[in-house]
């Protein structure tokens, strides 16, 4: 009898073991929930900073300038307000917004040559130097009215006449939960602060240049720089990456050299991006500065291309490998050469996969900041990039720069810029997903 299993002990063991199995299943599920929760926390903390109350002070109230709200006025009326309030600043406004020649030549160039836009006929041949006394401001006001949108003029009025300054900002969460306290605090202030509900993500942010003052700071040139940089990066890295993938998949023999190549690509994928930045700084910025003009978009694009090459090569190889070999054999059977087979049969069939790889690479490149800081992206640039050789600002660097500013309001502006970056990233990624799905459905 003694070697029979004690049923009671056996049972309790099973129950205990089943309990611990269930417990661990809950634990694993819990970690998963935590991971998802963190993503939402991340998104919440960014959105939270993007909208909320701000308190502003201003030199003059908008009502004192015009009976109607500024937004409803025409360009001429707005230009007249500028003419009345700040006649001396009009020349600078024209130069900052409409000038198309070098800054030091602007005052000696005829307006029809120096102005980027339409110039009334009676002013066309005059230079800013000819316009003395009261004639100058009046002429500049006409130029501004003719060439700027009402929105642009309103923002000029806000900056130069109303002198709007953001004193304090609150997050969305604070704005919703502590509304009464915030209102009380603002009402108690002695500087005549005014409370506004403000979305940091607005057209001004998207179009304006960067500035030391958070009220005027925008990401226009940075957005353009990012777009320019990515376009160049794609132009450089796509042919190189696809070429390397074709070589490794279709041409390479199984030998030491090609094994080395494969190992090398795998290892390159693990090199920290900042190391690529140092490579780019030495090779592209300093050694070949006669070609790349130093800290230029081209240097940045070359560096980013090297950075995303391993991603493009790996994904393109997978896409090429997925092309069924009967397609190749049929092509050879018809007498096509290797290159004819590759270029006319294999590449078109692998195209969706290759594009997916490219987009993965681009979405890596769009957020890269460290190598571009090393290469010399700058935030002090206020012009839009006009050639591959111009210096550049990029969106992630603007985010980094604004986040490290001591002024708390820059954190809000920074979060708005992050939203722009994430939207760009998500839209690029969704293109990749659509391409992938299309490729899968075609194969079936």
């Amino acid at each position, binding site marked *: 009898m003694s070697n029979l299993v004690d049923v009671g002990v056996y049972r309790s063991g099973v129950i205990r073991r089943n309990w611990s199995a269930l417990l661990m299943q809950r634990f*694993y599920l819990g970690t998963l929930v935590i991971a998802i929760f963190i993503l939402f926390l991340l998104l919440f903390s960014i959105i939270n900073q993007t909208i909320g109350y701000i308190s502003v002070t201003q030199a003059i109230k908008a009502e004192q300038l015009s009976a109607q709200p500024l937004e409803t006025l025409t360009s001429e009326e707005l230009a007249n307000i500028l003419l009345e309030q700040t006649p001396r600043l009009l020349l600078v406004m024209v130069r900052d917004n409409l000038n198309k020649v070098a800054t030091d030549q602007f005052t000696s160039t005829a307006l029809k040559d120096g102005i980027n836009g339409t110039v009334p006929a009676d002013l066309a041949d005059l230079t800013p130097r000819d316009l003395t006394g009261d004639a100058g401001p009046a002429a500049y006001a006409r130029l501004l009215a003719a060439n700027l949108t009402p929105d642009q003029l309103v923002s000029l009025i806000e900056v130069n006449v109303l002198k709007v300054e953001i004193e304090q900002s609150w997050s969305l969460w604070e704005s919703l939960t502590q509304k009464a306290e915030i209102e009380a605090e603002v009402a108690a202030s002695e500087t005549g602060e005014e409370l506004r509900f403000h979305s940091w993500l607005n057209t001004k942010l998207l179009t304006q240049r960067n500035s030391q003052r958070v009220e005027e700071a925008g990401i226009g040139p940075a957005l353009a720089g990012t777009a320019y940089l990515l376009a160049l990066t794609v132009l450089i890295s796509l042919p190189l990456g696809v070429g390397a993938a074709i070589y490794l998949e279709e041409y390479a023999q199984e030998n030491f050299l090609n094994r080395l190549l494969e*190992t090398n690509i795998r290892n390159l994928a693990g*090199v*920290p991006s900042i190391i690529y930045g140092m490579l780019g700084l030495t090779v592209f910025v300093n050694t070949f500065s006669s070609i790349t003009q130093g800290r230029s978009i081209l240097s940045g694009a070359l560096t980013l291309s090297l950075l995303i090459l391993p991603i493009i090569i790996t994904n393109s190889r997978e896409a090429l490998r997925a092309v069924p070999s009967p397609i190749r054999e049929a092509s050879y059977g018809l007498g096509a050469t290797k290159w004819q087979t590759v270029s006319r049969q294999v590449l078109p069939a692998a195209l969706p996969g290759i594009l997916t790889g490219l987009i993965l690479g681009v979405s890596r490149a769009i957020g890269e900041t460290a190598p571009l800081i090393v290469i010399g992206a700058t935030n002090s640039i206020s012009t839009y990039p006009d050639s591959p050789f111009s210096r550049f600002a990029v969106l992630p660097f603007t985010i980094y720069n604004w986040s490290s500013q001591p002024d708390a309001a820059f954190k809000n502006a920074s979060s708005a810029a992050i939203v722009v*970056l994430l939207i760009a990233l998500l839209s690029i990624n969704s293109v990749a997903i659509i391409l992938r799905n299309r490729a899968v459905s075609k194969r079936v």
Partner: protein
Amino acid sequence: MASEQAQPIPTGTAVDIKLKAKSDLRGQPRPGEKIIGGILMACGAISVLTTVGIVLVLLSQTILFFQSRAWLVARQPIATETALATVTGGFSDADTEIRIAYSNESSVFQQGQHILIGDEIMTITDRPRGRLIVTRGDLGTFITPHDADAPIYPMTEVAAGIVDAMQPDDLDVTVNTGFGKLFSVGQDIKIGAEVLRIIDIDGDLLAVERGIEGSVVPHTAGSDIEAEDRPTVIEFLTSTVWQPISGQFGILPLLTATMLTSLVAMLVAVPLGMSTAIYLAEYATPRVRGIVKPILEVLAGVPTVVYGFFALTFITPALKTLFFGDAINFTNMLSAGLAMGILITPLISSMCEDAISAVPRALREASYGLGATKFETTIQIVLPAAISGISAALIIGLSRAVGETMIVALASGAGPNFTFNLLASAETMTGHIVRISGGDLSYGSIDYVSIFAVGAALFVITFTLNLLSGYIANRLRERY
């Protein structure tokens, strides 16, 4: 019916195969094909060139760094002749607080100043009323107890200078008393624009070789002597101070900060990533996987600068209000590490999931057949079978954490700090490279080449980790 079937094939449209290029069929190689093959190979070779380029750049600039030299005026603290205060009470070896009886005005001592009591040199770290808080036994002196009424001599930094005027044919330099120990044989020194090399030292008398660089010129008495400071490999690897302005290049403060932030990141990412992977591979239904995998991919795709922003504006304030209060610095290693952990969780999770999914079903079924629960099967059968892939994933995750830049640049602090306190701000290797290169560096300056030495160390660490991960994945893999 029959007539339809018998319809003749229209002769006018017969397929007329023209053999335009007969050479194709004879299989003669075309020159174009070879060229295309060569071009494609060149594309592949770019990646090898990249590696070679990285290694060459880091190596050459690091060599330049160790060859570069800075000239620093040789100084040492010298006690003034009159004591300004005396010790009240007396104090033992362990005391760091001296109660003093001022015999003079109260502001005679400064923070950071060295003082001499007996034979021991101390540094003043704080001076509350009537007391001095000091660090003991500085500048190579020994900590000894001191009696009551011991005089306190304040010390001032005095530059080494030549005592007698030097003529072009003089081969001896006499430095002021007690300064001989600042120099070493073989060291270069600079007086005015002339560089001299020390060939022998006898107390405060230096025998020199003249005109190593610059022309041999006379020097007036009292001229300052600048000593060469060349960063050495030993100093680089062992010194705990990174302070380029005073010629101190020790990588340890940067390295410890990198290791601490990575450690915190791994403490977050390993449990989170691995159990997420186990859940997805072993428990989740296809529908749950379909929802969760894209979410993890989104987490992995968020740019790192966004995580830096998150750490700076969310994690740090949250830690401050929830746990640490004012003990936590505005920038600190803990929040940077936490954000980095979130960043590498999806990476570890997806690699671990691949490794777990690769374990054959038969192993699991055998385990279930023996009566094991799902948990027991996972822990005792599946994980050991997937251990090579899992360890490879963890090492890759660590390597990623070590090389991560923007999170630590924003959230961990700007300034090397040799500390093991996670709540303190300290700069990592990558953070330092970004901060230094963010300013306008002059090409070839010692600051410029120093970041390449740091970069080389970073490259060696991450490359070793990557190789190790590849090795483990290949060698320890169970083959089924």
